[in-house]
């Protein structure tokens, strides 16, 4: 269950066209240390460490390279055991009690905590031949790093935050979150059990433009509105697939926690879904990373696998399958036309270290402003009405 929290989008700036060639030529010569051209560099990763092994993955469905890396695995006689689990608590709990996983999703929401508590281990990016091809905006993110700047997760997908709805029952999609507070929308939509998106969007609708920094008074006002929103919602979706299934079954008409990929999944079930953006949420985005848990049995193989995950070829297929953004800019020409819907200027930047706007408060807030803990407590109160 990937939730739209603490995402990545360049603050403000929305550029116009993809200048793919320009970025890839930027990255090409950036392969520091390696003098050989990109194709040869990929072969320098010693994939033989993986021969005959079985890797264990836990995390978001679709982000483990099950389909995309099938031939990579069969060439090496490798197997991949997948534990699809989007419940971060269970994921973290499983690793903490010693279950051996070689690969894990590193969700932004929990990344810092997972890094600080040693749930995931450091990744030696100098060994990843494709690392320098990862788009700068993500590669330089501090979310995947610890205080010393060491990297603990490798971004493998990114996207924005649309609402998804049934075109049959919603002829004109709403444009503002305030519409969902009205009786016309009672029991018609789902959302994630998470305060980030609702609080952020409601704060915007109330004019609190400094969000995610909110004063306690502002937070209380947001809470009041959120209570109405939650009461109006039909249910909490447990995953993107769950929301899709509910819309396919006709139980709900819309979700505010959406993903373009949902339109493809519903299409397979012969139901048409569309996506759009609420004005309070536009410009927000997310990215997911893959990491190596501390309990990994085959960390070297995991590293080789991750390297393969961010290769242009694999990223092309992943982005097509998931309808998400590719993290390796070289992959863009390999993405199918219908899945190529993202603006890559959002994640490429001349200036390193620019971070995406977060929906939730940072780890330390100035005095008088609410912390993430306050947000969580407020959310618990919102839910009991």
């Amino acid at each position, binding site marked *: 269950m990937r939730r739209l929290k603490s995402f990545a989008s360049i603050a403000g700036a929305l550029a116009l066209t993809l200048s793919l060639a320009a970025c890839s030529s930027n990255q090409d010569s950036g392969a520091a240390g390696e003098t050989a051209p990109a194709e040869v560099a990929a072969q320098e990763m010693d994939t033989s460490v993986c021969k005959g092994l079985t890797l264990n993955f836990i995390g978001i*469905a*679709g982000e483990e390279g099950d389909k995309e890396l099938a031939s990579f695995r069969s060439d090496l006689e490798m197997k991949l055991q*997948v534990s699809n689990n989007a419940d971060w608590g269970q994921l973290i709990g*499983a690793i903490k009690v010693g279950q051996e996983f070689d690969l894990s999703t590193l969700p932004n929401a929990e990344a810092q905590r997972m890094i600080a508590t040693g749930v995931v281990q450091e990744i030696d990016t100098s060994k990843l031949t494709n690392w320098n091809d990862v788009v700068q905006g993500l590669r330089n993110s501090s979310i995947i790093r610890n205080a010393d700047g060491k990297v603990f997760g490798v971004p493998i997908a990114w996207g924005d935050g649309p609402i998804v709805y049934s075109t049959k029952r919603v002829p004109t999609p709403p444009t503002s979150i305030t519409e969902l507070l009205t009786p016309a929308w009672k029991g018609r939509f789902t959302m994630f059990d998470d305060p980030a998106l609702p609080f952020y969007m409601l704060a915007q609708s109330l004019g609190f433009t400094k969000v995610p920094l909110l004063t306690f008074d502002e937070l209380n006002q947001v809470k009041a509105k959120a209570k109405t929103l939650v009461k109006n919602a039909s249910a909490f979706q447990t995953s993107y*697939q769950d929301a899709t*299934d509910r819309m396919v079954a006709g139980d709900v008409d819309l979700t505010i926690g959406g993903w373009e990929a949902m339109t493809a999944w519903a299409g397979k079930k*012969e139901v048409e879904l569309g996506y759009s953006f609420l004005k309070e949420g536009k410009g927000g985005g997310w990215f997911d990373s893959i990491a190596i848990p501390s309990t990994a049995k085959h960390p070297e193989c995991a590293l080789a696998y991750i390297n393969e995950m961010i290769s242009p070829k694999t990223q092309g297929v992943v982005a097509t399958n998931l309808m998400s953004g590719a993290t390796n800019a070289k992959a863009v020409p390999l993405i199918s036309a219908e899945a190529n819907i993202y603006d890559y200027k959002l994640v490429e930047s001349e200036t390193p270290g620019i971070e995406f706007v977060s929906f939730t408060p940072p780890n330390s807030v100035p005095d008088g402003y609410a912390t993430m803990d306050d947000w969580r407590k407020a959310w618990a109160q919102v839910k009991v009405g």
Partner: protein
Amino acid sequence: MKRKSPISFKNLAGILYVGFFLAFLFVPLIVMILFSFNSSPRLSFPIHSLSLSWYRALIDDELFLDAFRRTLFLGLGTAIASGIIGLLAALGLVRLKLRVRTIAMGLAAVPLAFPALLYAIALAFFFNKIGVGFSLWTTLLGHVILTMPFVFLIVGSALERFQFSMLEAARDLGAGPFHAFRTITLPHILPAVVGAMLLAMAISADEFVVAFFTAGQAKTLPMLLYGRLNLGITPALNAVGVVLLVVTTLLAALAARSTRFQVER
């Protein structure tokens, strides 16, 4: 004036009630079975055409076959282990004073009162602390703890209505203790024992939370199902459920058959 109702009316009412009752219990299962044959990946009505494609896909699905084998092993192992241990305990218990019995039965029910998530984590933590790796065996232990109370309570109540006088008579006639147990006590409580063991197997086969935390990489069928449910519901999952249902039902039928045979003898 009490009017004596005709027997047939009482029977009719009884049959109707039983009918509705069983219908309520089985409707979701029937729906599950029905949709497993749906040719479209949707899990909603109307169903346009039927197909075996989901089942055919399972035959090639190695992960499914592995999980299936493991669940079967776990279910049978749990049934046998908690059956024997629970039976022994019930036998021992019935000969103790009432007060002790009540306390013991209360204690035995405590694992049932425990939220599965809490117990699963506690158990996983425990194994981790004593340095035992996660596998089907660790899960087996967890499942035995979860199902033993059922065996204990069910067999215990069966023993309580067992007429020990018969046993006394047999002993007076010279039967050895074990022989007497085997030929007199056991046949009378066998239905209860077998029923409890079947229950244990059913619980184990379907159990997810404890398995998730203690099976490690030895994925059981419920774990596989849960993981795939996160991928979105398709009839493939129903097919998995149906397979589980069919196998456990067959085992149950077999066990019930052998029980009846024994008692009649």
